[in-house]
């Protein structure tokens, strides 16, 4: 079972397909869950404390806005853990404020620099593209070193 980072990190489709074909999807929920379930200082809504931008310094320079560094404190450990990645390039649902947009750019840049196997796709717009989409994901996941469990 390989750990596969998914982009958009909140994607239902990618998360389901990765798990369905026997691998572990690494998405935003895992990082958020870790913070939500850790006792400390109350910092709603996502339990992002002033410590997070400091942790984010590992992934972004000090002059990078704290909003990006705080987000990278969630995604950075997942990127380090990832053994492969699936990216949907035309995901219009992955929009957000400037902090989200710059963090997304940094995530994609980090993934492409990391040298792990990456599959880049577009969301299907019809049934035939749906077959192509699922087949491409299955072939990519089957080809990973750690194999699938299906």
């Amino acid at each position, binding site marked *: 079972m390989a750990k596969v980072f998914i982009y958009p990190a909140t994607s*239902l*489709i990618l998360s*389901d397909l990765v798990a369905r074909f026997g691998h572990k*999807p690494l998405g935003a929920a895992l990082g958020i869950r870790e913070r939500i379930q850790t*006792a400390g200082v109350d910092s709603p809504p996502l339990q992002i404390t002033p410590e997070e931008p400091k942790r984010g310094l590992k992934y972004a320079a000090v002059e990078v806005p704290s909003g990006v560094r705080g987000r990278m404190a969630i995604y950075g450990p997942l990127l380090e853990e990832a053994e492969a990645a699936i990216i949907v390039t035309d995901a219009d649902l992955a929009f957000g404020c400037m902090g989200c947009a710059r963090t997304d750019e940094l995530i994609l840049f980090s993934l492409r620099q990391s040298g792990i196997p990456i599959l880049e796709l577009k969301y299907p717009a019809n049934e035939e593209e749906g077959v*192509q989409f699922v087949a491409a994901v299955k072939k990519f996941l089957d080809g990973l070193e750690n194999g699938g469990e299906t």
Partner: protein
Amino acid sequence: MAEYIPDYVGTVTKYVFVESPSMTPGELALRAYEVSEGVLIKETCFGLQVTGEPESVDRLIEVIRAFDPPHIFVKDRGFPPGDPRRCRANLGGARPGYLGHEREFRILRYITHGLEELDRRGGEEAEPAPPTLEKRPLLDIKRLQELIDTEES
């Protein structure tokens, strides 16, 4: 600063989406309750949220998926069900993240078709070509000059 004491420590929460012509979220919830064995189940408009020990949730998901594999989709959730920081009962309007789900929900029928078609082919037919990514055409130098001239005049 107030102290934060988390609930549901050590549990996982997962969304179960059902997009099926033969099963409603209510029916799925009823069948899930029969095999829940201590897992907390919350019925929603799109399916379920299940919360519990990781092993119990994985087992339940495995059973639920088997009801209608190409039409049931699962993903992780960071917050437990009913969390006041996320629940729309406290916030009003759509839950944060709902709009993303709504966007992907429209594509699920293509994914379902892909899963069914690949299952039907069973590796007998040649695999379909992977979808190609369109490259943006480069800006022609003459067109750039035209744009500059237009801007200057």
